[in-house]
């Protein structure tokens, strides 16, 4: 595990409708990759139970350097926080092959 390095894991939970937009944004903002799973949940904008197309969530993970993480968080806060159901949280993770991120 000598090759382990620390990176930021940014997790975003938001409306499925934003998937295309986010993917575009990540590319522009410098993320090298992302992972998405389907989710449901509840928050300030009420229950989002995936029962109807406009009410399903996605759970997005991006691993990146601190710089890019800050850029992404700032961008998402500015562009989506007001109008969309969205939460963001961050944590440090150890990654292998750090050059990938």
């Amino acid at each position: 595990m000598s090759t382990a390095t620390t990176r930021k894991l940014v997790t975003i939970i938001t409306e499925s409708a934003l998937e295309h937009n986010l993917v575009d944004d990540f590319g522009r903002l410098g993320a090298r990759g992302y992972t998405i799973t389907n989710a449901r949940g509840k928050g300030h904008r009420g229950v989002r139970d995936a029962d109807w197309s406009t009410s399903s969530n996605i759970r997005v993970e991006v691993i990146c350097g601190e710089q890019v993480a800050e850029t992404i968080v700032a961008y998402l806060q500015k562009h989506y926080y007001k109008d969309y159901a969205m939460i963001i949280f961050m944590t440090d993770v150890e990654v292998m092959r750090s050059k990938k991120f």
Partner: protein
Amino acid sequence: MTSLDPIVLFFIFGLTAGILRSELRLPPAIYEGLTVLLLISIGLKGGIELAKQPFAELVGPIFTVMLMGFLLPLVAYPVLLYVGRFKRPDAASIAAHYGSVSVGTFAVAVAYLSSQDINYESYMSLMVVILEVPAILVGIILARGISRETRWGRLSHEILLGKGVVLLVGGMLIGWVAGPEGVEPIAPLFFDLFKAILALFLLEMGLIAASQVSSLRRYGLFLVGFGILFPLFSAVVGGWLGLMLGMSTGGTMMLATLAASGSYIAVPAAMRLTVPEANPTLSISVSLGVTFPFNIVVGIPLYLQFANWLHSL
């Protein structure tokens, strides 16, 4: 009477189960599969008929119907803004829903007319496609003016290549090229099962509509009234346009139904991305929780009577 039609019974069944808070839901994949089948079936039927039609006869109806799609939201908007006291983006978004159409409502009207052996103009499925576009444009412009921020290219791609339009147009082209005999080998699925597939689809729609009722309660009576009265007004406009265009009784009824129905798939998706400050719950709950049930259970037979009356004048 339509309310005894098993297709409508399936809708009422779903609505009741939903209101009783049953756990029943169709798997999303099945619901999507049913939608695909309905859209292709409608397209195929339209395409087969369209082949028999001289193209020149379409120009007038296309133009008129497109105009209707632009005008209806322009009427709805001030009502929502000044009478309903909605915020500008909300009023614009709701208005856009009512300028567009609901394919589910159209499918029930198709089944209803076929069970009564009433014919209608073959280009009607084309009108469904045409009505997808203008309302969305009007909605966006009402909400923000002709803003630089709107990515028009991407937007038109999303509307014109959305699932609904593509399946309808694809089905129409296949029906048109293959003709009635060519389509025969696939008829057992797309035509013979049409009504049963529609019944299952309406069962799920009933469950979904029921889930909108609680949001409705929150937003008060105005929305419920609007969701019934505005479609009635639109139906009068649509029916009258049908008569002006010289359509048959069936066609007049169809155009009234298209006018009266409100979108709950293409428009919500487009509005969410272009007018995000509009509350999506408002527009979907009135379109899906009020207008759709009203049209399925009460509206469709009513619009036929209206068309009959118009043609008896």
